[in-house]
């Protein structure tokens, strides 16, 4: 991609069940709002953040350090937005189901 940004970042999985359904759901929804490709890698595996199944099968446990890679025209914004979800611990006001 010419002129496209590639952003890499390290993120830590905070939720105690690891990347389970609710965080995955939030990640997919967020990633879908960007045109850039967004991936998370862990333990030699790489997941497309726009795919819930990819993320589930990444099986990232609590405490895991993931590598986020965004590439495309809105890579910086995408990396910021995904990073924010991790930093916020995927908290939803109140308590979440799933």
């Amino acid at each position, binding site marked *: 991609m010419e002129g496209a940004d590639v952003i890499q970042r390290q993120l830590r999985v*905070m*939720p*105690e*069940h*690891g990347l*389970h*359904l*609710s965080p*995955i*759901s939030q990640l*997919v*929804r967020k990633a879908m709002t960007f045109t850039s490709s967004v991936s998370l890698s862990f333990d030699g595996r790489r997941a*497309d953040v*726009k*795919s*819930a*199944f*990819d993320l*589930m*099968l990444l*099986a990232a*446990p*609590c405490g895991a350090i993931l590598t986020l890679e965004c590439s495309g025209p809105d890579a910086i914004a995408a990396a910021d937005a995904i990073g924010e979800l991790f*930093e*916020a*611990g*995927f*908290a*939803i*006001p*109140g*308590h*979440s*189901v*799933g």
Partner: protein
Amino acid sequence: MKVHTGIAVSPGVVTGPALVLGSENFRIPRKFVTRDAVDAELQRFHAARDAVCHDIKGNEQLVSSQLGAQYGAIFTAHLQMAQDPRLIREVESLIRDQSRSPEFAVSRVLRGYAEQLQKMGDRYLSERALDIFDLEKRLLRQLLGESREELKNLTEPVIILASDLTPGETSTLNTKFVLGFATEVGGHTSHTAILAGALEIPAIVGLGRFLAGVSGGETVILDGDHGQVIIDPSDERLRQVEASQVRSRRVGERLGRMVELPAETLDGQRVTIFGNIEFPEEVRQCIKRGADGIGLYRTEFLFLSGNREPSESDHFEAYCRVVEACGDLPVVIRTLDIGADKVPQLMAEELSVGPNPMLGLRSIRLSLMNTQMFKRQLRAILRASVHGHVKVMFPLVSTLLEFRQAKMILMDVMEDLEDEGIPFRRNLQVGMMVEVPSAVILAEEFAREVDFFSIGTNDLIQYTLACDRSNPTVANLYRSGDPSILRLIQMVLRAAEKYGKPVTVCGQMSSDPRFIPLLLGMGLRSLSATPQAIPRLKEVVRNLSISEAVRISQHACSLDLARDVEHYLMGELSRLCPDLVDEAGT
């Protein structure tokens, strides 16, 4: 008569005819398609997928509007799976490149995911495999034009016995006819279990294989309180269940009317009954049952569910939701009571629990060690205090110094807020939990410094009798009726009276109707209990006079064994409110 035991996930006891739903074995008619049909088959896959997405959106709306957005979120996740680019890519590739039928491709790809999740050995993820099977069934049903008609054409009440119910099926159950359900698979955190609780129908999951011996139509007792399914129950058992259902309906109706009536004794003494809550959502349950406010708002969930340290605004938002829902009624917010049995992941490292966690770094001790965190919580409590009637209390205070330190930090935070021009209520009442025997022994000294006491009986019993009730070998020592506990409560009440400070009892003792005459007789005028217990407590109060309560408490305090105290109190309760005793099944 056959009894099967599983995991009780939604309470209640029902009796009715069995409707058996076997595992749905979709027969996939053909594995391959001809080369020239590939485009048509791809279209068939996409049409099926569109229809499934449409159905899931329907489930999402239905569940969100009936049960709330947090349950609807389950289907938001299902919708994402149905629209997943990896799924679509892999299914398309099997159809296009290997001439597989869409049925075969869908099943192969999704089962592959489920299998991988189950192999990971993570309970949480393996239960998500059920969500994947749900999607597989939905797609196959569309592709094959089949559906579980049994669930749609119900005309009379049934109890569903199934190998599994998917979350989608559970959400559309017609609760007019479905009395309850039991499944072979599933666990506490499966979405089916969560939805059953929200629908308020009795349910049991994880029974293991039991359907082979059931053909349908048999009479079944589904006991969602004890996790038991009884197939072909004996007449005696049926009569017992029916009698107790009639009774609990009658009691339920009468207790329903309690909401409107004040908690007032026969001789006109008003008693305050507060609710204990953990989540902001529970305020509604307290108000609905006529609570006088919130006597114990546990704030641990903010730390346990968010998986990161909650920010000041997380605290503030949660507190405001509770405080605003209560209007003018008081809300007692207890600061973080964590450690021992509840250690959030995020603190696991710094919080090395030690060999004896109950005697270790927990509750106020942890807050005093971690003042930044403590101040964040106090700031939020103070900011919320202008939105209603807020009080704050510190848990597990064992020395005067601890209380003074905690209060000093509160003053610091007040000063900070004042400097920043942020409004708060300076005259906010500051109290403490009495849960450690040392606090009872020094109750007079504490009474001079606190605005109120709240006796937390659970910890007080455990620390007084030196027993962990979760340890079955010593749990028999854990008795609310132990004479030592009664004496400690009297000491606190006397000290508080001397200095004119109010006392509330929270903990399981105050949710147990047996202890109400005793506590009122000792001079207590304020209780805080689980929301479900409030109507029963009101009923006891309304059937009692203070003079009688005094007589009961004097006699109870003259007994010297926990067993005798509890037996005596049970006898008095059955005289005052016979229905409540029958209902307890004793």
